[in-house]
């Protein structure tokens, strides 16, 4: 049997706890990031071949994320998620290095998106690129 006093203590403690929970739970939920509904795109036209000079890179928008389209010196197209795998800066194609470069901490990726020097721990994620006539499309891989 619990005595009257500890019963009251328990009741009081429980009430305070429930009260706090009733305040904190909605506040925590309120602060949680909202899911912003996004028309799920899986494929996107980024332009026509003429828009992209040889040996250059262009940042494009893929939904809310930046992508990097590279038209290499041999005329081949490649596309990557432009978000650096280190700490999320936006990378760029540097023709003087023939590589993808991240200015935040001197990270480098080769032309296939593989991390080759500096702090990035993983390769860049790659998009598939298709040509339809002279139009350039990128799409999510897999």
């Amino acid at each position, binding site marked *: 049997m619990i005595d009257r006093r500890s019963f009251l203590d328990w009741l009081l403690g429980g009430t305070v706890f429930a009260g706090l929970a009733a305040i904190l739970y909605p506040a925590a939920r309120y*602060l*949680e*990031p*909202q899911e*912003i509904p996004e028309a799920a795109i899986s494929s996107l036209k980024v332009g026509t071949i003429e828009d992209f000079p040889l040996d250059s890179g262009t*940042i*494009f*928008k893929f939904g*809310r*994320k*930046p992508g990097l389209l590279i038209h290499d010196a041999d005329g081949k197209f490649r596309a990557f998620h*432009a978000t*650096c795998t280190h*700490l*999320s*800066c*936006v*990378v*760029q194609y540097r023709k003087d290095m023939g590589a993808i470069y*991240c*200015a*935040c*901490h001197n990270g480098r990726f080769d032309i296939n998106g593989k991390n080759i020097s500096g*702090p*990035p*721990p993983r390769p860049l994620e790659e998009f598939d690129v298709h040509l339809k006539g002279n139009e350039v499309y990128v799409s999510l891989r897999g």
Partner: protein
Amino acid sequence: MTRTDSKLYDQLNVRFKLDALVAFLSSKKVPRHSHSIFYYTGGVAMFLFVVQVCSGILLLMYYKGSADSAFESVRYIMSEVPFGWLIRDIHSWSANLMILFVFIHMFAVFFTKAYRFPRELTWFSGILLLFLSLGFGFSGYLLPWNELAFFATKVGTDIVGAVPLIGEPLLEFLRGSEDVTATTLSRFFGIHVAILPGLFVLILSMHLLFVQRQGMSEPPRWKDLPESEKSYTPFFPDFLLRDFALWSAVLAVVAVLAVLSPWELGLKADPFTSAPAGIKPEWYFMFMFQTLKYIPAHVMSIEGEILGILMFGLGGLLWALVPVFDRDGSRKRWSRFVRLVGLIVVLYIIALTILGYTST
């Protein structure tokens, strides 16, 4: 005192017992010795906080905390509003000096061992004030919504996200979305102008209350000194007047810096451009940022970043707990060792900060 003054005083005294307050002020005294100058450092930090509150409230009259208009509103403050440039430059310069003085104040307390009994809680509340100051700097940096701040905040919050366990929820709370976006700016704005000022004033009040109740600390070696060899400056009016004189000088320095060396605004943030070269954090985060550069990407299968964060987390915790390790009764050797560690910490911070600005 003039007659009217004393009449007013009497009237108030009957109601509020002012005599007790005057007695308290006139008995308050500040020890005089070779390191007395350190007793001024906290006051300067507090004064600069007041400058921040005043200039910050003025900025609020024109600043707009949304991604569409934040950059433009700061540009408007700088170019159109009369003396807007001055207010912004004062806010930026005084912010940096405030953080500098918070650091100096902390090290002064550390090396004079003023954190020992009975002042442990004063030290702990001071550590909280340091973190809040850094939070002010970090959140304020993003507000102009320029390119450098945008990428620095991406990097900074990503590092927060790498902290084991609490990192991910903290990252979501700060960013309010998956990435640094307009939502992040709104949150940082709210944190900067409402949450932090509220918390800061609360904890600063406790900090000051503790200091007033306990009086100024005396150097440990004074314990064995006869009363006749200790000397003091009365707090009221002598010390307080010197405080005022120093604060005026500090304000003048802030004004000169603000006029001679204006703060850049740079380019508006654009999530769809490549990060420019020269992304760097504010100078007070530089030593940590620079350390992370020297840690390899992987150390025995732990990611370098995480290792660095754990090291700084542990180091910071030990630093915050120094009143627990180094007590009044601690042995002399141990006490000297703690001081040596402090010295190494200061040298490390200075060296890595310099490296951060000079190495490429």
